[in-house]
């Protein structure tokens, strides 16, 4: 094959490689853009949780909060469990989601501790880790008394 034929072959090969690569990349990025989730967190809002008088005082109050939430085309009822408590410094709201791997922790009356049923995480009444694998304490949620309704509200 003469020189110009070889040049032509090389040019064609480059064309095929570059354009083919670009097209493949284009399709791949389309899929990537489509596949990337559009929203991974729900904006937080204040939710009514309980009346201040509902708190027993000697232990945290377990509250299940339900909210309607758009889950893509699906409207779901999202339920969250929160522990409400009160001490000298005011009200406290703790998430019931274990800081280790997300199991739902429970208040144990006899031990007066939060126990995680999965891997043995133990938290005190303030949510601090006492034992087990959790890397940090239970998440503290913002809590307030709504001045209009005098109800306890949690930001979730």
């Amino acid at each position, binding site marked *: 094959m003469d020189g110009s034929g070889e040049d032509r072959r090389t040019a064609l090969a480059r*064309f*095929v490689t570059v354009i*083919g690569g670009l097209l493949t990349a284009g*399709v791949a990025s389309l*899929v990537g853009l*489509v596949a990337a989730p*559009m929203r991974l967190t729900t904006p937080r809002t204040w939710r009514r949780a309980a009346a201040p008088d509902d708190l027993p005082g000697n232990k945290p109050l377990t509250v299940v909060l339900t909210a309607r939430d758009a889950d893509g*085309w*699906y409207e779901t009822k999202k339920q969250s469990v929160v522990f409400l408590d009160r001490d000298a410094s005011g009200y406290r709201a703790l998430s019931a989601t274990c800081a280790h791997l997300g199991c739902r922790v429970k208040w144990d009356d006899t031990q007066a501790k939060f126990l995680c049923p999965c891997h043995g995480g133990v938290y005190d009444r303030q949510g601090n880790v006492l034992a087990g694998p959790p890397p940090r304490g239970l998440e503290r949620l913002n809590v307030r008394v709504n001045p209009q309704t005098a109800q306890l509200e949690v930001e979730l």
Partner: protein
Amino acid sequence: MTPRAEALLDWLDDRTGFRSIRHVLLDEPLPPGTAWFFTLGSILLVGLGLQVVTGTALALYYAPTPDHAWDSVRFITTEVRLGSFLRGLHHWGASVVVVAAVLHLIRVVGFGSYRKPREVNWIIGIVILQVILAFGLTGYLLPWDQRAYWATVVSINISKLTPVVGEWVAGFLRGGPEVGALTLTRWYALHVLVLPPVLAGLVAAHLYLMRRHGISGPVRERRGTPIEFYPRQAARDLTMAIAVGAVLALLAWKGAPALEPPADPTASNYIPRPEWYFLGLFQLLKYFPGKLEVIGALVVPGVAFTLLALFPWIDRGKSRAWRDRALILGAFAVGLASIVTLTSLGAMDRPSTAATGAWNVQELAGAMLIDTSAQCATCHNAASAIAGPIEAGHIGRPADWLATHVVDPEVIAPGVRQPPATNQRDTAAILAALARLRSAPAPEQDPSTREAAVLFNRNCLSCHLVDGIGGVEGPDLSHVGRKYDAAAMAKRVNNPVDVKPDAEMPAFGGKLTPAQIQTIAAWLAAKQ
């Protein structure tokens, strides 16, 4: 390439032999003269690959249940990033695949490439075409809108025509007593789990056999040395892929056809139309009434596909030149022309409502109102720059759009102050007439009949049944002319208590003029 990278590739080649795979894939020797016609198969392959990719991306958001399928497709179209484009790509991609498959088939027939020793690959190709059509059919149901639902009902009923096992086949496709949730999951499974590996296997076999026997090349063999696939033919393939891809992207940018209302088994005013590549079959069915239907539905397509499959055995000459194969090419051309003709006829026949038969009083009243409405004519006239005249066969807006427009033209056509109808009954009549006008012009009626229809629709229809439409509080008036003449009717309409002391019907003597009452009475008296 650095020596180190070279060494790594050498190691990989030693362990996997990837260079020989690359050699097998790219250095395929092609007969001299192989050119653009031979890119069609590659386009088909690229199209199928794109369907796999876009289909997978759609599946990330799609839910195959009657409760959510429609919503999830709406979500994809309106809310997912690039979702409308993605759905457009998949929708129009299906058409690209069908077109590419047919063009590839035409190329193979034209070049006589099905000849010995490529018979098996020819048959595999025909099966691939059928699998592609099965993809189209099963994918059609998934959006679960009216179009999807009714097209599926029809195709399942066609499957019933299969001799002996028809009921079983239909039952298997339906998955339950009715087209519903069980059908949707079933067709979804077929579309995304069953057909793809079947197609992949067939395509792999097709490509393997293509390589085994080599490309057939031009009709008249040329002298010269074979040319390697890469890079010359690859560049042709790629150029075609870019061209087809550009057209596809353009189509997809406008999105897939809008979702129709969600599937509604009770809708009586909906006429289903299949996707364009089934329009030929759809049209064919119309020519085989009653028990003969099986001929149009299964026998004709079956015979056509069988004949096609037998091409290598029918056409066994040595030369692939056209003039030596006049018979088979002629037969193929006739078949192709028939499909094109049937498809065009099917495409031209597009009524959008199921209503047939004579126009009822409400529809007649609506036609009269449309014709005489100054409000409609403000915009809908031949000279208007705003909107064309209201003409039979040219009404494409969906029913809900029309309903909004008729009640409040301002919403859709700013500047139009007055709606054509000021009461619900006139509105209903106009909408009923528009639904009929989609497919056929209003029948000619003398002016008194048309006026009677308007008056009857406005004043009487809510209580009285006529020709199958109307209320049931009062007597059915479909044949009232057998009992009363016009004078007796007029008396009853004017003041029913005059004739029947305990009549519940209100008197119309004060509401309608004597001339109007006469018009209604005469029209009713003619109802024999």
